[in-house]
């Protein structure tokens, strides 16, 4: 299953990057969200998948899933959320100020 | 009891599956909405009750949240449906079919152009 999930995460990366390489801001932002998802899936997969119970200790159960990747993902999700929110507002403001959401039109001049 | 749970689950799944088929087969958003608001309610009810029974009867775990979730869905699904179809209509999605009767559009049109009204 880990291999399949690695492939899934890899495809998420690919889709994220494809979006990242587009011109329109919305697509780019979406790309970053997908990339984060891919990364989180990778982290989860890199622990062992599906062994034991959810890591909430319970009497009589000794086999639990690896809690560390989960903790790391949790941190990362929250951070990604902060980043995405900022990026969104930034995109909105940038597009508004510059009157376009096409990044190719937001190149600027080398010397200015 | 086991059988009851299984039936609950199977019925629920059947309706849920039907929802999807409906969503795929039906021609426009309104008809799809029918499928979504109706079949899914029973579907989710089946599975939630099944899960509740399983956890309660077989393991003595009382999962109030499952029931709460179910009730919540039952209450909200029609509201959601209403909201979406209204949104659909207002954003200009026409119902499917030739020469379809549409009182709502006419009413809006009449309101916008009072002269047009007979």
């Amino acid at each position, binding site marked *: 299953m880990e291999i399949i999930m690695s492939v899934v995460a890899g495809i998420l990366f690919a889709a994220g990057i494809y979006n990242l390489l587009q011109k329109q801001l919305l697509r780019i932002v979406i790309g970053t969200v997908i990339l984060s998802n891919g990364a989180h899936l990778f982290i989860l997969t*890199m622990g062992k998948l599906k062994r034991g119970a959810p890591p909430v200790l319970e009497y009589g159960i000794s086999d639990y899933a690896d809690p560390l990747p989960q903790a790391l993902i949790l941190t990362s999700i929250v951070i990604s959320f902060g980043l995405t929110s900022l990026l969104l507002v930034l995109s909105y403001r940038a597009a508004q100020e510059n009157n376009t959401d096409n990044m190719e039109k937001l190149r600027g001049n080398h010397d200015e | 009891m086991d059988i009851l749970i299984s039936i609950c689950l199977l019925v629920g799944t059947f309706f849920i599956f039907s929802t999807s088929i409906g969503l795929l087969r039906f021609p426009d958003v309104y008809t799809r909405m029918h499928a979504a608001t109706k079949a899914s309610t029973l579907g989710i009810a089946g599975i939630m009750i099944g899960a509740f029974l399983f956890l309660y009867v077989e393991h003595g775990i009382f999962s109030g949240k499952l029931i709460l979730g179910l009730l919540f869905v039952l209450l909200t699904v029609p509201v959601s449906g209403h909201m979406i179809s209204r949104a659909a209509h207002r954003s200009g999605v026409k119902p499917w079919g030739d020469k379809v009767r549409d009182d709502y559009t006419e009413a809006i049109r009449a309101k916008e152009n009072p002269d047009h009204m007979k």
Partner: protein
Amino acid sequence: MLFAVLLPLILTLLIPFLSKFKDKIHTGIFVFFIPLGIFIFFVRFIGEGFSPKLESYPWIPSMGISLDFYLDGLSLLFVLLISGIGALVTLYSIFYLHKSEKLAHFYVYLLLFMTAMLGVVLSDNVYVLYTFWELTSISSFLLIGYWNHREGSRYGAMKSMLITVFGGLSMLGAFMLLHVTTGVTSVQQMIGSVDMILSSDYLPLILTLLLLGAFTKSAQFPFHIWLPDAMEAPTPVSAYLHSATMVKAGIFLVARFSPIFHGYEWFFIIVSGIGIITLCWASYMAVRQTDLKGILAFSTVSQLGMIMAMLGFGTEAAVFAAVFHILNHATFKGSLFMIAGIIDHESGSRDIRKLGGLMTLMPISATLALFASLSMAGVPLPFLNGFYSKELFFENSLHIGDTTLLIASIMKQAIPYLAVFGSIFTFVYSMYFLFGTFTGKQKLEQLPKKPHEAPIGMLIAPAILVFGVIFIGLFPNLFNETFLAHAAEAISGVETHEHIVYWHGLKTAFYMSLIVVAFGTILYLFREKWWNIYKSIPGNLSFNRVYNGTLKGLDVYTAKLTKGYMNGSLRRYTALIISTIFVVTGLVMAGTNGFTFKTDDLAPITLPEILVGIMVIAGAVGTILAKNNVAAIIILGVSGYGQALLFVFYRAPDLALTQLVIETITVALLLLCFHHLPQLSRRTERAGFRLTNAVIAVGFGTLMTLIGISAHSSKWFAAISDYFLETSHDLGGGDNVVNVILVDMRGLDTLFEITVLGIAAFSIYSLIKLRSKEGK
């Protein structure tokens, strides 16, 4: 010696205060005593019983960098030149520079230069030598740019800086190689480890880098181009830096390291080769100049070439001749520069075409110029020091040591002819300078000022130098035994006993001198006839053009190149970054057999998970296909929910909860932010655009997958997480292990994760609230 070196530097700190009195006392008067004092300090060492002295002061001993000052014959010669000419130039400058000028700047730069130059010649430590070396370039830059309101001044300053610093850096490279090869940083100790250097693989590189330093500083062909432009500096500076001292730093460097390369034939080939070419080319070019200082600049280049050539010959006699000429050149060229300055100062012009017949108006200057010019021309008169050294040059060009390499043999044959050729033009420009200025028709109407003789104070310094020209000419051996021999010895490494005689007899060298005078006279008299040759040689070919072209090219092509790839396109940037990571990491993976694949430790494959995975992928890929904002956002949301479901499958309920909440908020925010923005364009991009994107995306995705699979197949160690499961309850006080990790074991992560959110919140707030007024 440390004090002597640092004395000028210390005085620079006082200059700002001293210059406050400049209305009453010219700042130069204070400064004058510094070089004079240093000169007196060092002149004590002159004597037959002289032996080298070493003084050491630690600076950065850990890196082998210490202020080791080594006074041997060579450095003594230079120290005396620096301080002696320095004193004279300062004296001259007191009259040359008006009190309304920025004297403080001038003297600070000049003192800085003195320290630098003293440091260069006295340092035994290569890195300290390099430090002072660059300081000479810097102070030269500042002095050339002294009148920086002039375009030419700025141009000349930058040019000299670029070329000499280029050389300096090369030299640093050579020094580092020498250091690494021998393990020592002292020049004398390096000379002691000649064998290690000569057997090093780096030898050619060391030589090349070192000589680049020397040639650029001493304005050797083709690096000579900076020197004529350096004439934008005030004339005292030209006389001092760009004729007598700084430009000789390159000579000094070659001389200093001669003992190392003595037995290396390429040293002869390059040093003498470049020297002789420089001699010929610069003397030829000097004739074409119209600016008095221009003539002198090319003359300096040519003379430096001659000295360089002699150092390259490497024979004991040649080295002595070189040393002798260093001294002689300083005297006659220094005085000529000062006279040129006087003419400029008194007539307002240095353009030889506007000058003429000044002899009657400026008789003293004319007399001084006469002796100096004739000495420079090497006219065979036994009271001109220039004649002796020129004669020695011819003599030595005929007695170059044995050669083994073919090119060296060819050079050996050619050098005497080239020596004569170059000297003929030396004669021509000397006459040109002398007669063009002082004889012929007066063209006073073309001059800004009516010329008259300079104040006596201004004449003192050139007079002293011309006195030197004649004095040395009359008593050459007085200097020979006392310190020139020591200098030569320091270079050639053997005890030198050269006796200079007034009359060598009718040897080849004398005939060569006669040829020079004869042809020189003819060429000078009929110069109008052959002048046109400059139109074809060098014609448009000029190293100035190369320099200018290079700088212009740097400006234009760096801009073109940089604008080409730094085009501001985010897509381009990300595409390049991602492709680089993909290609290089991929290659490394392939190259190190990084891919491993093991299936023995995998979770069972189940259909529902795969289906949910497909759904997540479908969502991710679906966003690409989506034709409008809302659609893309909804599909993204669906994919995110699918991800949450995967978390449920993989026993991570807390993750699923968080993912659900955050995905929802994200979708809501996306809708909120993007509803004002234009819809996604329906126009599909070019196929090429899409293909590139796809290739990069798929490539990187594949790479990550392969690494992921390999990483999973290479679980060589037990994960540390068992500890968390064991201790969560007892030590962490909680049963939800993930929570315990987050708030306790990795509490720091969580604290700063919250910090990140906090910053984001504040930032969003200010983004929304704080708007610039510009567009509104």
